[in-house]
């Protein structure tokens, strides 16, 4: 059965960014109905009952997060939209903002109404210049049409929407890093609790939601809970803590696929189906060797390894909130699926990953700042053919010790830095051992040059 996209339904229309076209397709009718007929707490309940889980990476239930705002708070309360999409190989938020900004903005309006926010800040990464300008035009259109500002649609609801531009730092995607950056400070994540819903931006209750999450809010309010819950994977009856994986998801394909693109499917599609059916298969008629199932923080799948408690191999891992965990990965993450073909060296891949985290560690917590640097130095040495026998154990040791789970850091960046290291070494150990034993030199290595002498 083929799936008809909802979140991406409008992106191929001409002028899909314009308010006029969005309204012709029924846009903002949901907002009007919500403002007219529903109380804010009824919106919260509907989103909570839909089972929507945040699309930014952690998968926390959105409606539940909204209920954490203190009751009868005198305000101000803020909505902070996380449009700092920086997880490597992820670009679904960009597509939504560039091609259908009003679907996102309708979600911003409805969500702000639900949590009683009067100002929404959209924190957008600097690298998304086109998305920034498209969103700004869309916001200007809203003010012009009485859909933002004072007394929206005569309902008495006020909302100002402010676009705030980042400056190229991955850590700003961490919700409290984002808040610190918004406040004009270095983006050092905060110790939690207090959680942002209690004390966030400018020390006021703040809900931080991802762009795709807000697009889902628009559709849940428009199409209802039954539609949303008819898609995806219901909770595992044997696991009382499982919240299920309902709704559509925007998967982004990248790396060695024939057609890298953003695909909307119900949660739970397998990696194999996504790559073979929707991505046109692995490029150059090669075989897939490893898959990164949700942004590089999630770790790696090995395509010829049997899948635990399931049929087939890890290539058949279902991409719902539980699937990647069963295969030893950190989680579903952003749903960014990166394919690595059988001609590629895992030493090079892991070096690239370590390079990223070493560059993007914010430097606040010593274990992360130093640990990501150590891991990069070891990988750099290894790809130069100077790996040592003990390197793999040292890498695993560092990767196990840095992060919020072992309790040594404030935020999850270091967990994300450790997971690809742990999964790569455990699943591809023989390749790393061979690289060390044979002193293999990477094709990318250039002779070291003397930059300065002193």
């Amino acid at each position: 059965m083929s799936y008809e996209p909802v979140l991406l339904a409008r992106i191929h229309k001409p002028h899909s960014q314009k308010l006029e076209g969005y309204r012709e397709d029924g846009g903002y009718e949901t907002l009007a109905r919500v403002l007219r007929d529903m109380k804010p707490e009824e919106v919260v309940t509907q989103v909570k009952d839909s089972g929507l889980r945040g699309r930014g990476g952690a998968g926390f239930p959105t409606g539940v997060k909204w209920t954490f705002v203190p009751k009868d708070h005198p305000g101000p309360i803020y909505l902070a939209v996380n449009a700092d999409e920086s997880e490597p190989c992820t670009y679904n938020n960009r597509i939504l903002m560039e091609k259908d900004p009003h679907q996102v903005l309708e979600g911003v309006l409805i969500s702000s109404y639900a949590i009683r926010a009067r100002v929404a800040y959209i924190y957008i990464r600097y690298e998304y210049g086109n998305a920034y300008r498209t969103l700004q035009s869309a916001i200007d259109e809203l003010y012009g049409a009485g859909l933002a500002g004072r007394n929206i649609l005569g309902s008495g609801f006020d909302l100002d929407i402010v676009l705030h531009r980042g400056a190229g730092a991955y850590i700003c995607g961490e919700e409290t890093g984002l808040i610190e950056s918004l406040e004009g400070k270095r983006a050092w994540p905060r110790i939690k609790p207090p959680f942002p819903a209690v004390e966030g931006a400018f020390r006021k209750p703040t809900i931080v939601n991802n762009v795709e999450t807000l697009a889902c809010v628009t559709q849940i309010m428009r199409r209802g809970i039954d539609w949303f819950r008819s898609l995806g994977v219901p909770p595992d009856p044997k696991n009382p803590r499982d919240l299920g994986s309902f709704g559509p998801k925007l998967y982004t394909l990248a790396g060695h696929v024939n057609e890298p693109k953003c695909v909307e499917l119900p949660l739970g599609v397998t990696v194999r189906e996504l790559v073979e059916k929707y991505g046109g298969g692995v490029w150059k008629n090669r075989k897939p060797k490893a898959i990164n199932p949700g942004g590089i923080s999630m770790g790696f799948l090995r395509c010829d390894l049997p899948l635990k408690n399931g049929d087939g191999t890890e290539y058949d891992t279902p991409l719902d909130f539980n699937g990647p965990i069963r295969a030893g990965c950190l989680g579903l993450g952003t749903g960014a699926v990166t394919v690595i073909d059988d001609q590629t060296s895992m030493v090079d891949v892991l070096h690239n990953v370590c390079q990223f985290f070493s560059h993007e560690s914010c430097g606040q917590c010593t274990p992360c700042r130093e640990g990501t640097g150590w891991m990069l130095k070891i990988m750099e040495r290894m790809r130069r053919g100077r790996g040592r026998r003990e390197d793999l154990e040292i890498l695993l040791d560092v990767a196990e010790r840095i992060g919020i789970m072992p309790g040594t850091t404030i935020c999850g960046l270091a967990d994300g830095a450790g997971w690809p290291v742990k999964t790569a070494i455990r699943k591809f150990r023989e390749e790393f051992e061979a690289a060390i034993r044979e002193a293999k030199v990477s094709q990318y290595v250039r002779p070291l040059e003397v930059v300065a002498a002193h």
Partner: protein
Amino acid sequence: MSVLTQELREKILSYVPKYPNKRAVTLPALHIVHDALRQVSHEAIVEIAELLELHPAEVHDTMTFYEFFKGEGERLGQTRLWICRGLACMLRGAYELIEQAEQRLGIRCGQTTADDKITLEFAECIGACDGAPACLRNDVHVMNMTSEKLDALLNELRNM
């Protein structure tokens, strides 16, 4: 003599009503100054701090965290060209493109050509993986780069 023109000052101050305090205007102010003056000098930091009622050290602290802004003694060229080295781009030839650009321009990433035309940078994932390998021309994605397309782009930027 002040570094910030009246126009720049007004532009910065126009952001103040959007936030509950002036400190939140730090990042917008840095962007405004950086775009216009191609660097944020020590004097510019002092003047931004005055406008926002902050200590210059606070502005400097925020600015240097991001590694995005060129400070005293550095300068942005006419175009800033970032070449993405994220995993998706690396798998499709990004390292080769970075090497090619460095060789053609005779500079390393982070540097500006002597004629002030191009500042070359590497970028961590720029979110253009559907068109990997990709570059960022100032803040606009250039997708599906090849060796030939990079040469053509460098020529265009050098002759702008």
